């Protein structure tokens, strides 16, 4: 047992070099200034800390949990681009967390980690909806490559321009444009608009904006969401958008078609 741990640690240290190398040749975890968000569920603190350091060094934004119950709670928020899930965890094991997530239609890519290299675990994990697995001990280079592969699959489905009514939002250059004019949005404004446009007619809660854009452990006042919403509203109005951001008091915001059709062109 002890031997195994030391072996694992040695391997982790040895593969640091590989980490640097792979971060040069591969697609970075950062796209137009937005960090990919990962959830790491691993009960072994030492390993968890080491992984966080490596992932952060590679420009991922990471939340950590140490048992299955927290993993499920965090995973259900849908705030992640990928989840790294250990199988052997207290309270709920990784397989159970995974099947619960999939039951709730959460399709975020999941990478399973297992101490055992048993075939059964891998089969069960993949059948429960895991996208990939890695057996411990592993090299960080391989872990990073697998995270990239896993999140890349998701990218394929994402169009580079979001459209809603007469308004377009470009993921390439953060441009919010109408027929006659365009604005270049700042990073957080862009993320907020993207969330709204991905959820037309659906409510996005103030907390979801906070967690997704500012992060869980932010000290930023929650009213900042309100301020950013008013920035976006001004721009949408100036572009004569036929969609507007409506408030649901005390809950959140929703992108909806304008009721007033005075200024809105319907000929698209």
């Amino acid at each position, binding site marked *: 047992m002890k031997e195994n741990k030391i072996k694992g640690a040695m391997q982790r240290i040895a593969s640091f070099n590989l980490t640097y190398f792979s971060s040069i040749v591969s697609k970075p975890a950062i796209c137009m200034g937005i960090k990919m968000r990962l959830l790491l569920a691993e009960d072994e603190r030492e390993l968890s800390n080491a992984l966080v350091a490596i992932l952060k060094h590679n420009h991922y934004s990471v939340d950590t949990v140490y048992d299955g119950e927290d993993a499920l709670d965090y995973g259900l928020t849908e705030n992640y681009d990928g989840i790294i899930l250990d199988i052997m965890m207290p309270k709920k094991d990784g397989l159970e967390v995974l099947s619960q997530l999939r039951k709730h239609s959460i399709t975020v890519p999941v990478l399973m980690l297992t101490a055992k290299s048993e075939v059964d675990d891998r089969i069960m994990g993949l059948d429960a909806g895991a996208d990939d697995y890695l057996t411990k001990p592993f090299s960080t280079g391989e872990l990073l490559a697998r995270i990239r592969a896993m999140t890349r699959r998701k990218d394929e489905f994402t169009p580079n321009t979001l459209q809603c009514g007469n308004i377009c939002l470009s993921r390439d250059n953060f441009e919010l444009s109408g027929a006659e*004019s365009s*604005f*270049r949005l700042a990073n957080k404004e862009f993320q907020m608009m993207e969330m709204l446009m991905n959820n037309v007619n659906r409510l996005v809660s103030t907390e979801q904006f906070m967690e997704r854009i500012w992060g869980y452990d932010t000290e930023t006042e929650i009213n900042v969401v309100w301020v950013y919403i008013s920035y976006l509203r*001004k721009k949408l109005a*100036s572009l004569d958008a036929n969609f507007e951001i409506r408030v649901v008091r005390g809950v959140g915001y929703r992108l909806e078609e304008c009721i007033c059709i005075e200024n809105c062109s319907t000929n698209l």
Partner: protein
Amino acid sequence: MHSLYQAEYMFYKDKLALLQDTQEMFLASVGELHQNYISKGLREPIEHCKARIKCARSAKEKLKRKGLPITLDAALCQIYDVLGIRVVCTFINDVYLMRNWVADLPGISIVKEKDYIKSPKPNGYRSYHMIVEVTMQNETVFAEIQIRTLAMDCWASLEHQLKYKQEVRYQEMVVDELKRCADELASTDMNLQAIRELIKLDIGKPDNFFGSKG
């Protein structure tokens, strides 16, 4: 008047005085407005205001470019910016406030308006343009009034430099970057306006914004 200065404006003959009077009339109105705001202890919407009479050389160049006869008559009646006035404001809403103020000035009638803030030029240029006809001592003069924010003014002065430089390295990249900056400044101008309104709201109704949730 300086002799060189006079030589440059000889082209306008006896109409020069009329142009100068109109220019001074406008600047005096702006000065009066300024005093008005100060005396009421209100925030001023105007950062600064400039006026110029087009020098004869560029007036003639413009006539030539437009295929018009190079005469004083054409300069005064067929091009509209021999007298140019630029009003630079703090916030976007101030631009429209000033537009309404100009429209209400006595002796001024609007010939044409173009809102390049709502519909920017392809290069990213933003300003509110008005061509007005000013009646002074039974004579009329055209003037072009440009109203814009500080950010737009800053951008325009850089773009102007590019236009008159013969050869700029990385021309294409510079043009793209200027367009990007224009769209970023426009975004910031909007945000400043939004923040300003939040502050006003906060002063008007305490606890309504920063004090309460949501």
